[in-house]
């Protein structure tokens, strides 16, 4: 009996050390942009949008650049959504950051996209990050790869690097995450259609098209507030 408890204790120590070793390996964060900020500040930013602000349907996506489901959605469903719903004026799409704590470089990637947004290239960087998603599978420091993405997206890389080193959008990303948390976002991607959480089993372009068509068929057109805001462009800063 006593021998069994000794074996059990040794096993517990070995397993504990193994778990510690598994968690320990991984390396440090690449920059100030990689971690949560010391303070959260609401700078009035409410996400980059695609499509007309006159659209009767607004879909807000809470997403994580390192999340494989989000990458799948961005590369498989999003092209059809852009063609059939956004470019036709039916839907305005809003992207909100929801970096999951399980992902080491989510905040860093979100910051890279924000720095690209500063140069009017948020959606280009969004596509770079999702279409070349192998970076999320390796666990390696993606800093140099993201610089390449920035270059390929047409950014001024020096300005991009300065932005990343400053970590100036870390608070904005955390604000977005907390906003999602308050809305009971429990995974990524999570969608809100005209403010209501989408609870369907599969978020596909077909499902969103059906919902958007149904909303449009049952609602009057939005009144025009001012002519100057009829068509929001991509990378629009929303207050």
């Amino acid at each position, binding site marked *: *009996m006593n021998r*069994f408890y000794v074996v*059990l204790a040794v*096993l*517990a120590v070995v*397993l*504990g050390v*193994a*778990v510690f070793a*598994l*968690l*320990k*390996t*991984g*390396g440090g964060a690449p920059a100030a942009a990689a971690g949560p900020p010391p303070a959260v500040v609401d700078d009035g930013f409410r996400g980059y949008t695609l499509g007309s602000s006159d659209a009767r349907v607004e879909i807000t996506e809470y997403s*994580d650049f390192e*999340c*494989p*489901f989000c990458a799948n959605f961005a590369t498989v469903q999003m092209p059809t959504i852009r063609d059939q719903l956004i470019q036709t004026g039916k839907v305005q799409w809003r992207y909100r950051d929801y970096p*999951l*704590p*399980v*992902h*080491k470089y989510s905040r860093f990637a979100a910051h890279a996209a924000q720095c690209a947004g500063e140069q009017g290239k948020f959606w280009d960087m969004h596509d770079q990050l999702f279409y070349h998603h192998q970076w*999320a*599978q390796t*666990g390696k420091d993606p800093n140099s790869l993201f610089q390449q993405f920035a270059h390929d997206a047409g950014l001024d890389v020096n300005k991009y690097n300065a932005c990343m080193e400053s970590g100036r959008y870390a608070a904005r990303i955390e604000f977005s995450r907390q906003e999602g948390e308050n809305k009971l976002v*429990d*995974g*990524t991607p999570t969608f809100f259609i005209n403010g209501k959480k989408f609870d369907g*089993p599969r978020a596909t372009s077909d499902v969103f098209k059906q919902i958007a068509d149904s909303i449009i068929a049952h609602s009057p057109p939005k009144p025009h507030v001012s002519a100057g805001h009829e068509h929001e462009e991509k990378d629009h800063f929303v207050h």
Partner: protein
Amino acid sequence: MTALRQRQTIAVLALVGFFVALYLWLHALGVGGPLKCGTGACETVQTSPWAVFLGFPVAFYGVVGYGALFVVAIVAMRPAALGRRGWSSMLFAMASLGLLFTLYLTYAELFLIHAICRWCVTSATIITVIWVLTFLALRTDRAASPPRQDPQA
């Protein structure tokens, strides 16, 4: 296999399961780097909507469940508890709950997420073996217990 040996085996397996679940839970809390999995499938499973159940990472339930199984198995190893059928029933009930939860998660992996996490397979194997052991222990106890006497006889 004697009742003592069965409960010792359950305790060892529950301990291993506890540490597997602990690793996944700590990872879900953001401790450490990427999951060591060999492929990206673990990350796919761990970041899916099915990785959270009632507001907690599913691995948290594994930590609690395996921890409870371990404690009960250890307590049930006492000489006074070895002959008691109640301990076998309790272990069987706990293992059945764990197995049902595992079946739900395995279904989600195979048919909803379309990805398999090696750590989840490890845990599923452990809880299945534990369930078989508790089931066998329950049957052994039932066969060993004296037949119920008619109170009017």
